[in-house]
């Protein structure tokens, strides 16, 4: 069990209502977890809590079974093993060129230069950034910045990858590339948690789903089961992924949904369709 929340409450300074309330949560290891909920329900706060950026008012966080004590050393280890990709890449990119930015986290760990060089090179290749290696960050497009932000985090080889609205600035083609990249990250053994309100993306990608509302987790379980609870999702104001809506309509007309579902998942992961 990589990370666990135990009745965590967090209120932003000067806010009237807590952003996260009495929240308990376990992120199952090795899964593709989706965290959905409407805007302002506390998804981003939850991710920031998980990265140790905010300290809960009440409740505890556990990282690999041990309670997080927020000492400098434990935060350092935590952030080495938990990677957070922010919604807006601008908030994360600090160095001047792509290559320097990717090396930044490695330099903070005090690794020897040869290892830094090696890992930066491999990450540049993995994320198709070789040609952009020496380009200044301000010359990149938003999609490219997003790619660099993910590379920044993945170069540290985290055990848990947290992503806040990863599809927010991406066009459909970039979203499909992201999908494939996430698939590779998953296969390599990294647990991933994606917070989003892009239901279609999460429907095709996640195998474990958590639904948040007003600072709490209200539903949790395997994605297929959760997406079958149409009425509950609708009352939470989330609605259903387009695909589920369609499938329901087809099913009502007597066409097998399982077959079509597998087709949809396949479609999202291939480049042309």
């Amino acid at each position, binding site marked *: 069990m990589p990370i666990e929340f135990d009745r965590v409450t967090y209120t932003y300074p000067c806010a009237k209502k807590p952003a996260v309330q009495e929240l308990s949560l376990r992120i199952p290891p090795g899964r593709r977890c989706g965290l959905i909920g409407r805007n302002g329900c506390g998804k981003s706060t939850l991710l*920031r809590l998980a*990265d140790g*950026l905010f300290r809960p008012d009440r409740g505890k966080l556990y990282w690999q079974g041990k309670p997080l004590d927020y000492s400098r050393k434990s935060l*350092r280890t935590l*952030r*080495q093993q938990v990677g*957070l990709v*922010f919604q*807006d890449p*601008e*908030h*994360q*990119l*600090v*160095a*001047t*060129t792509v*290559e*320097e*930015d990717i*090396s*930044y*986290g*490695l*330099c*903070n*760990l005090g690794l020897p*230069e040869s290892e*830094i*060089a090696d890992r*930066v*090179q491999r990450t540049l290749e993995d994320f198709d950034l070789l040609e952009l*290696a*020496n*380009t*200044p*960050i*301000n*010359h990149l497009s938003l999609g490219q910045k997003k790619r660099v932000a993910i590379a*920044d985090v993945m170069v540290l080889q985290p055990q848990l990858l947290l992503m806040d609205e990863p599809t927010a600035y991406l066009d459909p083609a970039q979203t499909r590339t992201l999908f494939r990249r996430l698939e590779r990250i998953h296969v390599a053994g990294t647990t991933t948690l994606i917070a989003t309100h892009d239901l279609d993306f999460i429907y095709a990608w996640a195998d474990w789903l958590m639904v948040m509302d007003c600072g709490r987790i209200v539903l949790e379980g395997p994605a297929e089961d959760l997406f079958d609870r149409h009425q509950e999702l609708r009352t939470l104001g989330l609605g259903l992924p387009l695909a589920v809506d369609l499938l329901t309509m087809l099913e009502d007309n007597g066409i097998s949904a399982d077959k079509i579902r597998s087709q949809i998942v396949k479609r999202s992961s291939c480049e042309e369709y």
Partner: protein
Amino acid sequence: MHHQIDSLVYTNRLRHLPPEHKLSFAAVLFILGYGSVPWVQGAIALWLAVWIVGYAKIPAKIYARLLLLPLSFWLTSVPALLLGVTATSRWSAVQPDVMQGVVVGPVYLYLSVQGWQQASEVFARALTLTSCLYFILLTVPFVEILRVLRQLRCPSLMVELLALMYRFIFMLAETATDLVTAQRSRGGYLTWRVRLRSLGLVVSQLVVRTLDSYRQISLGLQSRNFTGELQVWHARRHKPSWRYSTEAMAGCLLLAIATGIYYAN
């Protein structure tokens, strides 16, 4: 314009040369240009134009426009250098310095010979020294200047500040442009009064947004294990060129000899 210069630097044809070479070349020419005679200064400015437009392939039009900048500063200072004022009764005392003069009541206004000499010296020097700076600005990417500063053991606080400024000035410019565009689309700049109000709003909004960005970025830095120092690593990709090095060294030597001869006489 700033953005344009930044893009030009990254595509200039001398980019592959080691930044140390280019910086020391410009520094040597800067010192020579500062102390030398006008015709050597002219030669330096011309030679650098060949480097910038000919070798680095920076469009001549843009370079010419950039050179107009020091020229306009020079033009604004010319009247102060050139014009002399004295009481009409004492006009004979300044007679040797007068190029052309006119009496306006009790005051004698004249164009000064010495002032003219000074103005032309300032012109030659300004043109040469800005050419040297433009050579750096147009052929050495800012990032590489920072790396050289780091190598020269410049205090890391200063280098980091410069790096962060370079990183964020574009974000600031973008935010400001977005705000202005948004206001424009709603008629925010139609009349003088509305325009002032809109500008005031932009300034206050920029402060608010900058503070917000600052908060987000400090979270971003924390999440990436910020240790108090911005250490980064980069690969070395520069190739020294025998051809350019020879031309640079030979030229500098010639100019130094010319200056030396002038001072010897």
